C-alpha cells in the first residue's frame, strides 16, 4: 500500500501542521525570551568585570545554564512529562510540547543574551556608572538599549532554533511540520508529503531570518547600519 496522497490533502495537512508549528514556536520563543533575557542579564552583571561581579553566583548560574544546554531536547521532552501535565494540564498535544520547548530554550537564550551584552563597551557602561545611575537603570537604558539590534538578531536565531526543535514534538503528539514529514512522509514512503513539508520549513526559516534581520537593521543607529 503505497498510494501518493492527493495534493488537496497534502495542502490541508500542511496548513494544519504549519499552524501547530507556528503556535508552538511563537509561544515557546516568547516564554524563553521573557525568561532568558533576565537570565542573560544576571549572567553578565555577575560576570568578572560586570556591574556587580559575583564569582560564586556567576559560576553556579553558568553551570546550570550549560547543563540545560547539554540536555538533548528529545530527552527533555519525555523527562519533563510530570511538569508538562502540571503546567499545561495535559501531557500530549501542541500545548504540552510548549513546556519542554520553552524550558529547553531558556538557557540557550540566556547565553546568547549574555554574549550580546558583553559586547557593550566598558567605557560606555562606566560612563553611565559615573552619572550616578543605579544598576537596574544601566541594565535597561545602557546594556539592553545599546544592544537592541544584536538582541533582535539573537531572538531571530532563537525562533529558528525553536522551529527546528519543534520538529521533535511529534514524540508527545505535538503535531507540527516535523511530525507531518516523519509520519505521513518518511514513514509512509510518501515523498510528496515529505518534500513539500521540507519546502514549507525552508520558506518559513528564510522568511523569519529576513524579517528579524530587517527589524534589527531598522533599530540600529550605528553607521554601518544606515549605509
Amino acid at each position: 500500500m503505497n498510494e501518493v496522497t492527493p495534493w488537496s490533502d497534502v495542502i490541508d495537512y500542511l496548513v494544519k501542521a504549519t499552524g501547530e508549528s507556528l503556535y508552538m514556536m511563537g509561544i515557546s520563543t516568547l516564554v524563553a525570551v521573557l525568561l532568558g533575557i533576565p537570565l542573560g542579564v544576571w549572567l553578565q552583571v555577575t560576570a568578572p568585570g560586570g556591574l556587580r561581579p559575583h564569582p560564586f553566583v556567576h559560576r553556579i548560574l553558568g553551570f546550570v545554564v550549560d547543563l540545560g544546554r547539554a540536555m538533548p531536547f528529545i530527552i527533555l521532552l519525555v523527562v519533563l512529562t510530570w511538569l508538562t501535565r502540571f503546567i499545561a494540564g495535559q501531557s500530549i498535544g501542541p500545548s504540552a510540547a510548549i513546556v519542554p520547548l520553552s524550558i529547553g530554550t531558556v538557557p540557550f537564550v540566556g547565553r546568547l543574551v549574555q554574549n550580546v551584552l558583553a559586547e557593550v563597551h566598558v567605557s560606555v557602561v562606566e560612563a553611565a556608572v559615573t552619572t550616578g545611575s543605579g544598576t537596574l537603570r544601566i541594565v535597561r537604558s545602557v546594556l539592553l538599549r545599546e544592544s537592541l539590534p544584536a538582541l533582535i538578531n539573537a531572538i531571530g536565531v532563537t525562533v529558528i532554533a525553536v522551529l527546528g526543535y519543534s520538529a521533535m514534538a511529534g514524540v508527545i503528539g505535538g503535531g507540527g511540520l516535523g511530525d507531518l514529514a516523519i509520519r505521513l512522509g518518511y514513514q509512509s514512503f510518501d515523498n510528496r508529503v515529505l518534500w513539500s513539508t521540507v519546502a514549507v520549513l525552508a520558506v518559513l526559516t528564510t522568511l523569519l531570518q529576513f524579517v528579524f534581520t530587517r527589524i534589527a537593521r531598522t533599530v540600529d543607529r550605528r553607521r554601518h547600519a544606515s549605509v
Partner: protein
Amino acid sequence: MITVENLTKSFSGRTGAVVALDGVTLEVAAGTVCGVVGPSGSGKSTLARCVALLERPDSGAIRVDGTDLVSLGGSALRAARRQIGVVPQGDSLLRQRTAAGNVALPLESAGVPGPQRRTRVGELLDLVGLTDKAGSYPDQLSGGQRQRIAVARALAANPSVLLADEPTSALDPETTGSVLTVLDRARAELGVTVLVVTHDMGVVRRICDDVAVLDHGRVIEHGKVLDLVADAGSRTSGSLLPSVDQNPEAESKYDRVADVVLVGFAAVGALLPEAASRFGVELGLLGGGLTRLGETPVARFRVGLTGERSDSALEWISEAGAAVQRKPKGPQGVAA
C-alpha cells in the same frame, strides 16, 4: 574645590603587588583647571579612576567641597557621583541614542522631569556649540564633536567638579582645540573645578592654571603653571618653555650666561635692551624664544653678557620680575 589626600592604591599583579598610587595629595581650588600629567604607568589613570569613584583607593580621601567621598556606598555613592562629572577615556557615548539623549542620561538618573530636562539639555548643547547636532547619533559626529557631547553630558547634573580622562588623546591637533575650548568655557561660565588627566603637555599649555606631575605613583611637582615655569629646575618649565640649544662655543664668548624667564611681560623685547644700555654691558641672545601659556605670553631666553657690570644687569632684570638662572660657564671658560 577638590582635594585628594594621601591616596594609595595597589593592584596584585603576577609579580606581586604593583603600587599605582603612593600617597598622592592634590588640591584644586574652585573654578580652576588643573592638569595631571606624567608618563604612562605613572598612576594618572588610576588617579582618574579613583576620582571618578570607579575605583576604591586602599587609603586616603577624596574631598569635594570638604566631604570625603571614598568610603561611601549605595545611594550615597550614586549621589556623590553626580557631584563629579566625568569625561571617560575613549568613546563613551551611547551609540543608540542621539546627542541630546546622551546629554540627558545623567538627568534621567537624577530624576529630573521631562520639560526641565529638555531645557537643560538645550543649554548644555549650546555651551559646547552643538545645538544643531541635537538629533544626530554619535556615529554621525566627528571625534571632536563626540568628545564635546561627552563633556556636555558630564556637566548635565551640575557637578562642582569636572574630571576629564585623556579627553584629547584620540584627536588631531585642530579638534583638540575645540574640546579644550569647551573645557575652558565650563570653568569660565559654570565655575566648575576641572581636573584634566593627560599625557599631552599641550593641554597644560592651553588651559591649565595648575599642574601636577606624577611619576611612579607620586606627585613630584604641583603648583601654578606660571610659578613652575619660572623655576628653572622644574619638569614643567622643561616641557613648556621654548627650548634652548646648547651652544658652548657661543656661550664661551661672554662673561656671564644666564637663562631669563619672563612671565606675562607685554614688553618682553624691551627689558633686555634696557638692561644692556643701563649697565653698559654687551648683551646677546643665544637662544630661546616666546610662547604662550593660556592667555599669558611667556618667554625664555638664554642671554650672554659681557662687561664689568654684568652681574648688576642680571640683578636688575631679576628685580624687574624675571626669573634669572645663571649658568655655570662651560669647561673651556672656567678660570682656575
